[in-house]
C-alpha cells in the first residue's frame, strides 16, 4: 500500500537518492543534502504550524508501507515571492497601427512581471523510477488539491504551477541561448541552479528590465515560448484536466508556461465528496485498475494522509475501509474522510451515490453539447 503523508526527517536518504537520479530540471529539489535537510525541516515547521502561514512549504511524501521507504514527493508553497522576488515574463501584445498608411502590426512582447507574487504554487513533484505508473504520479499530484480544498484559508484563491520549458538533450534552452545568455554571463543550468537556491539578487542585477519584442529573437527561441519540455507533457495534461490554464506568463529562463486555476474550479476539489468511515474486517482486493480507484484523505492538517481504494467501497453516507487502510490513514469508524477520483472524473456508478445538489460538470463536458 502506498500512502501520502507529511515529509519527515527520516525521509532524507530516500529523498537525496531520488533527487540525485532526477538530474537537471528540478531546481526546487537539488541533490544537495544540506538544502534537502532545510526543506524537510521547513515542511515539518509548516505542518506543525511553527511558521507563519504565508511562509508555509507543504511537502508530502509517498510512502511504500511494505518497503518503509519514501518513493515520491510533491509540494505546495503557500505563497511565492514574499521572501525573494518571483519573476516571470508576461507574453503580451503590442499593436502599432497607422490608419493613414494602412499599417497594422501586432508584435508579441515579453514584459518582466512579478504578478504571481503572493500566490500559492504547486511544486516539487518527484517519483522514484521504481514506482512509476499505476496512478502513483496522479496520487502524488492530486493529493495536493485535496489538501488545498480542506485548508483553503492557508492558500490563495488561485494556485499555479510552473511547467518546465523546452531544452535539448544537452540541457540547452533555445530561449536562454537567444535571450538570457546575452545578459547573464553563465550557462542556463547555472542560472537555473542559482535561481533555485532562492537568492534571486542576481536576477534583479542582470536581467533586462525593458520589454523584449519577440520579432527580434530568432525563430527557434520564439517557437518555444509557452511550450513545455517533452517530459513535462504528461504533467501539463494532468493539470489541464484538473482545470489549469495557461495564464500568459512564462519562465524568464526557458519560456516554460505558468498554468493556473482557481481552487474552487479544480476538478479534484469540485469532485470531492465527504463520507464517514465504516471499518470492515472482511478482506478487500485493493488491486483494482486505476480507473476504479479513488483517493481517500483523512482531512488532517498536521498528519495529512491519503491513499487509494476501490470506488466500490463508497456508499451513500459512508465508505467501507479495510482495517489496514484505516490504520494507514489513522482513522476509525465514524471519522470523516474525503474522497475524490484518482483519474479523471467520477466513474459513472458513483453518480447514484452523490448528493444531487453536488452534481456538476466542468466546461469540457459542455463543449460537446452543440
Amino acid at each position, binding site marked *: 500500500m502506498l500512502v501520502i503523508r507529511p515529509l519527515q526527517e527520516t525521509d532524507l536518504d530516500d529523498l537525496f537518492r531520488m533527487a540525485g537520479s532526477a538530474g537537471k530540471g528540478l531546481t526546487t529539489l537539488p541533490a544537495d543534502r544540506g538544502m534537502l535537510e532545510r526543506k524537510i525541516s521547513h515542511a515539518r515547521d509548516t505542518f506543525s504550524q511553527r511558521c507563519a502561514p504565508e511562509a508555509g512549504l507543504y511537502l508530502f511524501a509517498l510512502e511504500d508501507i511494505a518497503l518503509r521507504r519514501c518513493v515520491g514527493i510533491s509540494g505546495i508553497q503557500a505563497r511565492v515571492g514574499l521572501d525573494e522576488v518571483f519573476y516571470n515574463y508576461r507574453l503580451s501584445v*503590442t499593436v*502599432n*497601427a*497607422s490608419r*493613414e*498608411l494602412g*499599417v*497594422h*502590426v501586432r*508584435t508579441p512582447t515579453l514584459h518582466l512581471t512579478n504578478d504571481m507574487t503572493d500566490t500559492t504554487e504547486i511544486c516539487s513533484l518527484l517519483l522514484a523510477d521504481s514506482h512509476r505508473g499505476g496512478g502513483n504520479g496522479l496520487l502524488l499530484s492530486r493529493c495536493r488539491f485535496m489538501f488545498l480544498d480542506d485548508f483553503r484559508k492557508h492558500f490563495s484563491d488561485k494556485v499555479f504551477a510552473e511547467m518546465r520549458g523546452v531544452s535539448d538533450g544537452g540541457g540547452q534552452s533555445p530561449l536562454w541561448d537567444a*535571450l538570457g545568455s*546575452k*545578459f*547573464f*554571463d*553563465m550557462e542556463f543550468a547555472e542560472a537555473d541552479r*542559482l535561481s533555485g537556491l532562492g*537568492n534571486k*539578487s*542576481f536576477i534583479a*542585477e*542582470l*536581467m*533586462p528590465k*525593458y*520589454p*523584449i*519584442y519577440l*520579432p*527580434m*529573437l530568432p525563430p527557434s527561441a520564439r517557437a518555444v515560448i509557452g511550450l513545455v519540455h517533452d517530459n513535462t507533457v504528461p504533467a501539463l495534461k494532468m493539470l489541464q484536466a484538473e482545470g489549469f490554464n495557461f495564464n500568459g506568463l512564462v519562465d524568464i529562463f526557458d519560456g516554460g508556461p505558468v498554468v493556473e486555476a482557481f481552487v474552487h474550479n479544480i476538478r479534484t476539489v469540485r469532485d470531492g465528496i465527504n463520507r464517514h468511515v465504516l471499518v470492515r474486517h472482511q478482506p478487500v482486493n485493493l488491486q483494482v485498475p486505476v480507473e476504479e480507484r479513488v483517493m481517500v484523505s483523512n482531512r488532517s492538517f498536521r498528519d495529512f494522509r491519503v491513499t487509494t481504494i476501490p470506488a466500490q467501497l463508497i456508499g451513500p453516507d459512508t465508505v467501507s475501509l479495510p482495517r489496514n487502510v484505516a490504520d494507514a490513514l489513522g482513522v476509525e469508524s465514524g471519522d470523516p474522510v474525503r474522497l475524490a477520483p484518482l483519474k479523471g472524473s467520477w466513474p459513472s456508478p458513483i453518480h447514484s451515490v452523490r448528493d444531487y445538489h453536488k452534481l456538476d460538470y466542468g466546461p469540457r463536458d459542455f463543449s460537446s453539447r452543440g
Partner: protein
Amino acid sequence: MWLVRPAQPGDLNGIRDIAETQGPRLSSTLPRQEENLAAKIRQSGQAFAGQLAAGDAARFLFVLEDLDTGRIRGVSGIDARAGNGQPFYNYRRDALIHASHELGISRRVEVLYPSHALTDQTLLCAFAIDPALKQTDAFELLSRARMMFIAGHRTMFSDRMVVEIQGVQNSSGAVPFWDSLGRHFFDMDFETADRYSGMLSRTFIAELMPSNPIYVTLLSPAAQEALGQPHTLTRATMELLLREGFHAGCYLDIFDAGPVLQARTDALKTIVTSHCRELHAATADQGETCLLATGDGAAFRCTLASVSETLKGEVLVPVKTWQGLECSSGDRVRIASL
C-alpha cells in the same frame, strides 16, 4: 562660374533632375513628386522672404547654379528647427551596467533609447549634387554656403546644429539596421518608410515606432555593426562636416542607424572664420579662392571667387563675379577661406 542662391519656382525641373540621381535617403527631405517639390520650393521662398505665417516652419532650400549654362547642378537645405514643429526622432545610444557583486559579473548592456532631444535644433538637410562635381570646389561651396547664410542670419537659427548622415546600406539595397528593427514595426521596406518620413505629418512615426528602449545585443550582428556608421558614399560629405566642426555623438537615425552629427553653431569653422568686408574691384583674377556671400534673405548669393584683402578692410574681387552676386562696389560681403 558657380552660384548658390535660394531655390525659385523655375528651378523645379532642375532640382527634380538632381534628386533623381541620388540614393533614397535624400528623399526624406526632398520630395520627388512634382507637386510636393513645388510646395517645398514655395515654402522655402516664403522662408527666405520672411513671409512665413506664424507657426510655419522655416525651411530653406538652396540651389547650385552653373551661371555659364544656367543649369541647376545641386541643392542643399536648412531646416531652422529640426522636426519643423513636430518631434525630431532619433535613437540615443547609451549603456547600462548590469553587474552582480556577489557573482563577480559585470556587463555593459547597450540600449537604444527613443529620443527627441535634438528637436528644434537647426538641421542641415537635403544635400544633393551632380555626381560629376563631387571632387570639385563646387561641392564645398554648396555645403558651406549654408553656413555662410547662417552666419549672416544668425538669429534665425538655434545655437546647436545637427545633420543626419546616411547609414549603412549594402550593395543589394538592404539596410541591416532596418531589417533587424524597423521592418518588424513599420511593416514596410526601407525605401517606403524613408519616403513617408518626408511627409508633412510624422504621426506615423509616433504610431509605428516601438516606444520601449531597444537592447543592442538583440539586434542582428550586421545591424549592430551598422550602428553609427556612415554609408560609404557619404564619406566626402561627412569629412567636410567634420572639418567644419561637427562631431558624431550618441544619436542615430531611427531608420538606418546612420550617425547624427552635432555642432555648436558658433563654433563652426565657417561661422568663426568668415568675416565681412567692403567689396572693391580687383584688376586681375588673383588671390586666394574663397567663399564670397552677400545679400539678405531672398537676395542671398554665394559664390567662389579669387579674393585679395587690403589693409583697409576691403576685399578685391574680379568684377566678373560681381554680376552673379548682384552687388556693386562698396557693398558689404562675407568671405571665408576654402
